[in-house]
């Protein structure tokens, strides 16, 4: 596959290297001449010294034939514009933006960039899983609405363990979409009995996250 990587900082450099090693074709766009030279010396002539947020650079980098563009600069506004320009002007089929401020994930989704990666969010999820109250994870915001998908694991001694889905005190607007039990996805209705270790998938208004947590985690 052909990838255009915008930004050759630490993330862009190692990402490009990894993509090359797995046999993909890569062009990395970097505005800083010295950084571009540094990367070129290590990865070969796949570097383009140009500002990735300008349409012309994207055209020259071949964004119109790329399978995907990944914007990984340290500037959220720049990553947003790079992705939007590629999508609109070059019709790049897949654009992925690095989000430095996790609060911007939902902003990017609302503005049409569906795929975002936030290192802060990834680390937070890992840390939350390690905490005793772990097992409650807002997984993703749902594009174009103020709702989100939450995964919650039913723990021993919590109110929902052994109860029916219908008896959960979920806030209004929240609904159980399914349950993962022993690795299998199953349908859930009001009469489904919750077991310890069940991972419950809940769709909920983002604003009601706290109430969902209370209902499922006690």
């Amino acid at each position, binding site marked *: 596959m052909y990838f255009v990587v915008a930004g050759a900082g630490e993330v862009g450099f190692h990402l490009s290297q990894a993509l090359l090693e797995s046999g993909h074709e890569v062009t990395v766009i970097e505005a800083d001449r010295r950084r571009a030279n540094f990367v070129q010396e290590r990865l070969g002539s796949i570097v383009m010294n140009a500002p990735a947020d300008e*349409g012309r650079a994207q055209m020259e980098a071949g964004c119109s034939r790329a399978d995907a563009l990944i914007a990984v600069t340290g500037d959220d506004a*720049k990553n*947003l514009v790079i992705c939007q*320009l590629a999508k609109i002007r070059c019709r790049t089929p897949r654009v992925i933006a690095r989000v430095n401020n996790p609060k*911007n994930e939902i*902003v990017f989704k609302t503005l049409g960039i569906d795929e975002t990666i936030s290192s802060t969010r990834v680390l937070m999820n890992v840390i939350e899983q390690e905490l005793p109250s772990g097992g409650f994870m807002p997984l993703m915001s749902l594009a174009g609405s103020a709702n989100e998908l939450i995964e919650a694991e039913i723990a021993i001694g919590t109110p929902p363990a052994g109860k029916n889905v219908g008896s959960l005190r979920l806030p209004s607007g929240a609904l159980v979409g399914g349950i993962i039990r022993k690795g299998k996805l199953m349908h859930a209705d009001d009469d489904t009995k919750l077991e310890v270790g069940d991972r419950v998938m809940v769709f909920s208004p983002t604003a009601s996250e706290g109430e969902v947590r209370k209902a499922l985690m006690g």
Partner: protein
Amino acid sequence: MNVVIVGCGRVGGFLAGLLDSEGHRVSVVDIASTSPARAERAWFQHLPSTFKGETILGDGTDLEVLRQAGIERADALLALTEGDNRNLMAAQIAQKIFGVKQVIAKVNDPVRAQTYREMGINTFSRTTILGTLLHAMLQEDREVGEVLMRKALAHEAELVHEPARAR
């Protein structure tokens, strides 16, 4: 009219003063720069001393900061920072998330200005506007140039008679 202005450089400060003197409710957002050189200067030094509106220190692409600036009841937002990308992000947030009716972003790169205008974001490029004005003043369209210059000079005259807000 309730107006939020993001970016208080010379243009932002000038426009904020103008709207404020006409009786509009204006709040101005400018980033809290961490550079010591900048920190020693007054943040909103380009606002006239008579400015009665609100000043908010913060990132104009942050939803919380924009809420503080009153974006939820704003009739217009102008994104006038030095960064094209920041202006485009702030403008889109205002239009798509907060539903602000009139949104204008300063985008100096003409390619980006055109692309986003086609997407429904009102943009203007200082490069093309200033260039076109100068061109009009020089030749073909003297009238356009003269009308604009007359207005600009009148505003300028008012401004010069006012002491600056802070040094």
